[in-house]
């Protein structure tokens, strides 16, 4: 709300802050206890790249999406052997090659594939797969080996490398997460603190009154405090500043696509709005949950893949209409695929490798990687052929423009989707 904007002692953007300080108001105008991040951002005068920056949108399919029924090898007899009831007949798949088809509820993704802006990387996984939701999610989020434990996320480390020394105290969020069930995803956690912002699917949280906010602005974080209260103060301060700005950006945003009425699509609409609003955010993270289909998978997965396909299509169309599509790369991931052989409950149990989608106008569309071998006994899992860190490495090297070796701790072969 603009009223907040006018009465706050805090600037709503780093630029505005620099303008105010440059205009002679000076740091002292913000009191002796000016928040550390503002002091830092004043000292670091190099502006963050705000034009033509590349943006990554991560879509987490939480629960473990069944890859075999997402990208269907309809010419492979083994597929129908493994999936006596869940197998999707060749006549119903949405063909993307002579042997592969998308799930019938992915019509929009098929259209994007035909337009050349969708890449599907087959059979992505990692050695010694873990079948626990939490451990495997952690492996994907931290980009660690199966037996290694890292407490930072791969995007967090990217921000560590890219933004250290630059105005790290800038309170414009470098990463935004929306609709994530557990708050900030581990993916975004770095060894340095980075400004991140969380949104509910339908917009920024409503805060307290103007008067309380002005008082709370003085409960500023003490530099270097690592305890919970410092963390809360830092988050609150970032929130107060960002909240005003984000609310305004989203309220002013005019989407040029019709988004479906569900939280996932609303989240994507907000992301489009924030990108169009010129936030310097490099990474957006959104979650679509419910893929843990142990029982009666067909209906649930069809609904979820439909939500995914239609949401992404609206998002892409919106970005194109705003001529922002060249700046954005969208990628899906899930903690694991599911067991190739269906279980006796018309569902599938936790498995290993699965395909993932990469979407964007500058994506080299098509099918990449190689298909899993399906000549496995009933209770066996797939063996991955593309390491997920190859996908991350490609995004880092070729999209975000940050050397992947430092983030991933070693080289991984490029997957040429961009």
């Amino acid at each position, binding site marked *: 709300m603009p009223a907040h904007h006018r009465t706050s002692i805090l600037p709503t953007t780093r630029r505005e802050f620099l303008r105010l300080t440059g205009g002679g108001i000076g740091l002292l105008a913000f009191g002796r*206890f000016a928040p550390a991040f503002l002091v830092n951002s004043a000292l670091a005068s190099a502006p963050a790249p705000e034009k033509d920056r590349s943006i990554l949108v991560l879509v987490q399919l939480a629960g473990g999406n069944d890859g075999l029924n997402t990208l269907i090898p309809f010419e492979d007899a083994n597929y129908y052997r493994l999936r006596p009831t869940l197998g999707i007949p060749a006549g119903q798949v949405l063909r993307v090659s002579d042997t592969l088809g998308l799930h019938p509820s992915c019509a929009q993704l098929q259209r994007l594939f035909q337009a050349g802006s969708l890449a599907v990387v087959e059979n992505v996984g990692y050695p010694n797969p873990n079948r*626990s939701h939490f451990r495997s999610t952690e492996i994907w989020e931290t980009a660690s080996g199966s037996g290694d434990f890292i407490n930072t996320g791969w995007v967090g480390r990217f921000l560590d490398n890219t933004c250290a020394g630059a105005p790290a105290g800038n309170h414009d969020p470098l990463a935004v997460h929306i609709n994530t069930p557990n708050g900030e995803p581990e993916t975004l956690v770095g060894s340095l603190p980075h400004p991140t912002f969380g949104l509910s699917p339908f917009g920024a949280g409503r805060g307290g009154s103007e008067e309380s906010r002005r008082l709370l602005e003085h409960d500023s974080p003490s530099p270097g405090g690592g305890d919970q209260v410092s963390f809360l103060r830092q988050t609150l301060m970032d929130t107060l500043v960002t909240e005003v700005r984000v609310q305004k950006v989203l309220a002013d945003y005019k989407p040029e696509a019709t988004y479906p009425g569900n939280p996932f699509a609303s989240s994507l609409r907000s992301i489009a709005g924030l990108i169009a609003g010129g936030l310097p955010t490099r990474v957006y993270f959104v979650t679509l949950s419910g893929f843990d289909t142990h029982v009666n998978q067909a209906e649930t997965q069809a609904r979820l893949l439909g939500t995914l396909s239609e949401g992404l299509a609206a998002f892409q169309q919106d970005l194109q209409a705003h001529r922002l599509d060249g700046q954005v790369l969208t990628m899906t991931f899930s903690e694991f695929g599911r067991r190739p052989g269906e279980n*006796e409950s018309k569902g599938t149990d936790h498995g290993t490798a699965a395909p993932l989608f990469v979407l964007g106008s500058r994506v080299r569309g098509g099918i990449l990687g190689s298909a899993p071998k399906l000549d496995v006994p009933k209770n066996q899992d797939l063996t991955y052929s593309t390491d997920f860190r190859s996908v991350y490495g490609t995004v880092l090297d070729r999209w975000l423009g940050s050397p992947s070796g430092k983030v991933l701790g070693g080289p991984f072969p490029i997957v040429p989707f961009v």
Partner: protein
Amino acid sequence: MSLSLSVGDAWAPLPASAWEEQAVRHLLRRAGWTARAADVRRALGEGLPATLDRLFPPAAVAWPEPDSVAGLERDLPDFHRQVAQAMGEAKRKLRRDAFERSQAAVRDMSVNWMELAVVPENSAFEKWVAFLGNVFVVATEKVHNAAYVYRHFEILASGALGPAPQLAKAVSRSPAMEVYLDLAENRTGAPNENFARELFELFLLGEGNYTEADIKEAARAFTGYRIRPATGRFAFAPRQHDDGVKTLFGQSGRFGGDDVIDLAYCQRAAGAHLPRRMAAFYLGDLRLPPEYEFAIGDRWRTEGAYDLRWLVRNFFGSRIFFAPEFRGNLIKSPVQLYLGLLQDLNLDVMPVPRFVLNPLRQMGETPFNPPNVRGWIGGRSWINSASLGARRALVERLFTPLDGAALTADEQQDLVAARAGGKSRFAMTESDLDAWMALSPDQVLGSLQENFLSAPPNPEFLSQLRQFLQGRATDPAEHRRRVRRAILTALESPEYQVC
């Protein structure tokens, strides 16, 4: 992390001399929702052991079945008969109606539980049951039957302070669990591993303390666990059960589900697992080193015979629980924030589900619906800009009079019923501020800190609040407004979010 106590001293009982006001507040806020002045005085007089006896009473706190849930249970046999007879669209409609009815019952039940838990005498027990519910997780998102979820929490409450293996066995028979982890789909020749995996990983042992083969064998042992549709109660189906020999943890036999639980509790890891979960829930993000977990875990197994009351007394009565590194640094869960606010302000739970459940959802915790089988992980994961905004909005709401015109007819009826039951304090009124009006600005700040804040506020913030309270103190209406705003701001502050 450096701890102030060695592993040998950590779990020794807190000396009586250390039982002072700040220690009392620490226990009351961590074990329950908050520390009201009267409760602090009482506990200080009673001493720690007697206080623990009172917080964790000998008999489970009774949670009377909400009417909407009872109605669902009563109609269940009839519903199954109707569904069996119906066809096509009629069948779908029956199912949809039942689903919607259950959703409504879940909302009703959630408010009802909040009403139970906000009673100060029930707080520590209900928080303990909520903790157990965050270990033995079920979620209404998958269990579309409010009655099953209610019965699940009844199982947890009735076994909450008894032998842990007995509770785990009861949970394996809980219809909500059967549905949530697909146990009802597990049968001979077609084992479903979902329950067996989470039983070891999350409920009893923790990752790394079992093998994939143990899971496969355990899944076979749990075959035949069913729900009888007409009654909605557990039933064992011998013909669905795999009676063959299984090998787990190096032992072989024709094991059933209960045997698997007993075998798991023979593992040393079982003793340390629940204390580890308790430390995460009650002590916070600082993880105890494994040797501390084993120190209490081994004693729990040998001296305590896996009795949960033994564990509760030895955990909350220990020196480590009161150690300085665990004071004032636990981020309150949304439910604790909400119930603590109500207790601090002496307010009643608003009997209108959306007014209670929307703020909880926006803060990230919908009762009975954790995001996944690991439950809420708590700590910093509660806090982001959206949830902090929602926390502040909740405080504002509790200081805003209810707008009767904005309620639906049903909601107005609920409100009338609540008032008839003696509950009418749903928001702070002007007269609630009377006691504060006589205080000087410094006394107001002192009272806010002593009663509400577990961590010291920033001096600059305090001085701004003081200035704000001093401004226009001669105008009584304006002064009252400012006192109200100062209380609100303290409750929205970072320092109120921790305990």
